[in-house]
């Protein structure tokens, strides 16, 4: 069953086309990674799919109940504590305060936020804690679709792994589908069913590869070999690598 479908979607900021002819379909409980060089329009695409941005043209169909969004920046309310930030979507949904508290605490626990950090305001949280708060906020509503826009960039390696596992587990347990934007090909290989590569100029989806095995069942060596294979042999990924090198240089 298709839960998200984009057809012929394009977008222009003030006349400058950043996305064109985008077509993609996501099935229920499917995790799709979206990769592409910086500035190619990944965030724009996520915002369009999540309904935050009207596309200049194209059609979007959403067949899920409720989505959660984890933005590229944490986007926390500075006047609210971490707990209130996590519970914010529940407040919007009219959930009672006791229930809100319980669910916010459960979500915070899952992203490894300590109870004492829940009383802090965002200014008093570290960058990684802020991002984890935002992840908890995205998952607290029991979504059946989650948009992740490079959610783990601010996290260290160990925490990143832990959060990836969290997403894999949660997606399996709660059967949510996800569109997961990332720069990191091994992250994509680790947690996605399918990888889409966005054209460097945003002109369409350049191609897609399905990843062998299921998320959560791939060993580190498998992930490593798939990534190596993609990077050394697959022309689809050559462009990402090029741009990455240019950026580092």
């Amino acid at each position, binding site marked *: 069953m298709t839960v998200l479908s984009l057809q012929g979607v394009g977008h222009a900021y003030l006349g400058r086309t950043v996305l064109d002819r985008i077509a993609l379909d996501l099935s229920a409980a499917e995790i799709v990674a979206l990769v592409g060089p910086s500035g190619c329009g990944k965030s724009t695409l996520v915002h369009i799919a999540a309904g935050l941005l009207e596309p200049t043209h194209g059609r979007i169909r959403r067949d899920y109940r409720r989505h959660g969004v984890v933005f590229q920046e944490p*986007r926390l309310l500075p006047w609210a504590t971490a707990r209130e930030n996590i519970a914010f*979507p529940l407040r919007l949904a009219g959930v009672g305060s006791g229930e809100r508290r319980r669910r916010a605490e459960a979500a915070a626990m899952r992203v490894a936020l300590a109870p004492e950090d829940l009383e802090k305001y965002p200014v*008093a949280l570290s960058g990684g804690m802020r991002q984890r708060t935002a992840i908890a906020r995205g998952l607290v509503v029991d979504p059946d679709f989650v948009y992740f826009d490079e959610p783990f960039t601010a996290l260290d390696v160990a925490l990143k792994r832990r959060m990836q596992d969290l997403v894999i587990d949660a997606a399996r347990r709660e059967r949510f589908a996800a569109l997961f934007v990332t720069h990191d090909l091994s992250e994509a290989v680790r947690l996605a069913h399918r990888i889409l590569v966005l054209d460097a100029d945003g002109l369409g989806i350049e191609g897609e590869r399905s990843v062998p095995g299921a998320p959560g069942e791939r060993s580190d060596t498998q992930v490593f070999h798939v990534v190596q294979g993609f990077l050394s042999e697959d022309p689809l990924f050559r462009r990402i690598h090029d741009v990455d090198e240019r950026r580092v240089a």
Partner: protein
Amino acid sequence: MLALPTSGLGDRIGRTARFLWSGWAGIAGLSLLATVWQLGHEAYGDFILPAPLATFAAVLSLLESTDTWSTAFETTRRAVKGFVMAGSVGVLIGVAAGYSAAMQRLAGPILTVVLGVPPIAWIVLAMIWFGSSDGTVMTTVVIATSPIVLVAAMEGVATRDRGLDDMAKAFGAGPIRRCLAVGMRQVGAHLFPALSIALGTAFKVAVMAELLANVGGVGGALARARAHLDVATALAWILLAVAALILIDHGVLRPLRSEAERWRDAARPWGVRR
């Protein structure tokens, strides 16, 4: 300063303590002013500038009469009523204008003109329209203070973090909900300082309008003191009006503000807290 646990009660006590501390600092500043005043008195003599102590004595003797209280209350009532009206109108229109680029562009030149007209001109017009009545004072106060609030509210909305708007939208908040839950909180940073200024302006303008329109209140009392060349009484009235302003600013506005802006405390390094 006080290193208190972040528990709700401790936090509140800490904020109250800081509030009292700021009162103490205020008294120190005012004492300095009184010193300069005393020097002025010693240089120019009783007729031009009565001593601070003599003025305080005049205040105390004024306060013994119930007339004084009702006169001061009259002015306070007018100023506060006008301020509340101007505040509500200013916030409503300002927030609406902040959300609408077209309204913002329209409001710009109008505000420049309205803010450019001195309050005294409004008093003259209001006296022609309303005669010597409450209406004159209130109209002047509203016209003089609402643009201040309006501009601040508009600026607050226009400079809000749109990322937070998008975030709220992503989690299902409609436009009104976004405005109330996300927009208004960001307006506070601009709005509260403007409200303090507007309240001060409201008192000043109210006294001035009362004096010119001869409708009683502190302004009326000042007019009488001038007629009798009674500088001590005039100064006493001025002190009373300022005291009423400070009472409302520090008793109502600032506590509201520190309650709303509590999170900013967390951003301040230890020691910089007032």
